């Protein structure tokens, strides 16, 4: 499938960048003229992934978060969010709804939101090396 456009972004894991990251991705995918609901789904999923990197991967430090997105001719979107933080010991466990390793009112629903709001979610992680989240979504066809 023909790739129409792409971008790469590197941001420090400061919580103020949660809104920057989701707005950047949403501005980029706006080229495909998504519906408001699709845009909101994408923003929410990106916010979850970036927040995970900030809260978990770089728990006690500021590290880099790498965000890239690609849009394709068939109106599909691929988003990759990667960190080089602490990694996840057990990805299957981390994907379970309500599972969380930290207190402070984290709901444990981040991955559930990504799974439910996007069409595809893949989480690869190596303890001590970092985590990569790949999400895909096919936008509805324009009439």
């Amino acid at each position, binding site marked *: 499938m023909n790739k129409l456009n792409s971008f790469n972004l590197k941001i420090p894991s400061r919580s103020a960048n949660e809104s920057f990251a989701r707005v950047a991705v949403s501005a980029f995918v706006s080229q495909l003229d998504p519906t408001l609901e699709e845009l909101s789904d994408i923003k*929410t999923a990106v916010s979850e992934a970036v927040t995970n990197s900030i809260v978990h991967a770089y728990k006690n430090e500021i590290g880099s978060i790498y965000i890239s997105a690609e849009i394709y001719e068939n109106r599909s979107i691929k988003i990759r969010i990667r960190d080089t933080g602490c990694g996840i010991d057990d990805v299957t466990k981390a994907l379970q709804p309500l599972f969380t390793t930290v207190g402070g009112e984290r*709901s444990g629903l981040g991955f559930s939101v990504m799974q439910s709001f996007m069409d595809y979610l893949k989480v690869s992680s190596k303890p001590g090396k970092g985590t990569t989240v790949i999400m895909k979504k096919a936008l509805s066809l324009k009439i």
Partner: protein
Amino acid sequence: MSVSIVAKGEVVTAFLDGEIDHHTAAEIRTTIDEAVYEHKPTLLVLDFKNVSFMDSSGIGLVMGRYKTISELDGELAIINTSPCIGKVMRLAGMERLAKIGMEELANEQA
């Protein structure tokens, strides 16, 4: 992000304004809990009318306020959620903890 609190009788209403994420949730939490402990209401209303974005950090916020108000034997209501915010609430099963969309009830008691 800002929160304004209106306390009337036994009802405390928190009007949330802006985007709710992990970055903004802490401040909202503190403001609401201070009002709840001060007024000890029987009903805490969270008004989402002016909330333009919310991720699962907002769910953590709602679950936490449910805990706070339950300790005081009060109830929680969530009103004026947009379709997008309603989607996140439903995913998290928030209707089990709070009365969602009971605008009339909240207005009646306010």
